[in-house]
């Protein structure tokens, strides 16, 4: 919980934020058992800090996905490979 002044927002299951942050990956994988998944969802629905944390992990994976692209083989390397392939199966 981000606001100790509002104890009524305490999730009924008492899943603490420091527990939730360790469940983020398995949660995002969709691999939590249904009961725990529900506790996580309940928690982030009430906790701005954890909602933000989970969203930032998602944003992080979005940035990571954007790194894809990579350099192709150099033309020389490519030619050498194709020549080798030709020779090996000729």
């Amino acid at each position, binding site marked *: 919980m981000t606001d100790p002044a509002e104890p009524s927002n305490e999730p009924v299951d008492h899943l603490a934020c420091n527990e939730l942050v360790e469940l983020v990956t398995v949660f995002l994988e969709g691999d939590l058992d249904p009961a725990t998944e529900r506790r996580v969802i309940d928690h982030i629905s009430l906790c701005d800090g954890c909602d933000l944390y989970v969203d930032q992990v998602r944003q992080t994976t979005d940035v990571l996905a954007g790194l894809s692209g990579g350099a192709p*083989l150099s033309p020389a390397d490519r030619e050498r490979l194709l020549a080798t392939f030709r020779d090996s199966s000729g």
Partner: protein
Amino acid sequence: MPHTALPPDDVLAGLLLAGDETAFAQVVDAWSPGMVRLARVYVSTEDSAAEVVQEAWLAVVRSIATFAGRSSLRTWVYRIVANIARRRGGREARTVPASSLGAGPGTDDAGPGTGDTGGPTVDPARFAAPGHPFAGHWQQPPAPWPGPEQALLAAEVRAEVAAALAGLPARQRVVITLRDVHGYDSAEVCSILEISVANQRVLLHRARAAVRLRLERYFDHAAARAAEEVP
């Protein structure tokens, strides 16, 4: 992310076995960039990564007849890359055998919470201490990040994330690169690296937390700089 233009694995393997050069050129073009990135995880220069990929393709050509279809062809090829790159890599000493996971702190820790095993991924000081009425709840919650509309930031953010990746322990870097950069699913990564689902998840979890933390620090600094500039 399978290349949509490629034929199904059994057909492809058959074409390669039959010496079909067009098919070979097609897979070389489709997979080599990803193979270079995978190799780069283990070896320290682009040149040696390119050499690893060359060597891997030669091994593929030599041994395509042994491809049994138990994994996808691409996974089979990636395993060859990983094995060659690992053998060549100067980082071998930094990698932790799967069997040592869970047997104590990783030997390749780059700092608190960044190792392969053990310990929380978020600084415990950010949560209320035990005994506090809100023990375990955020004391220092994350601050919102600027939205994706800040296009000017995008290149800097990518550079920051790339630097964070480079600083990860080798095993974490391999897993997060395959999963989040290349888009492989969990089963494929386990298969390529020959690790368990649980190990894969621990490595991914720690890696993502470390990269997120790096971005958080970057945005915090950016916000602090912006605040200073406001009169």
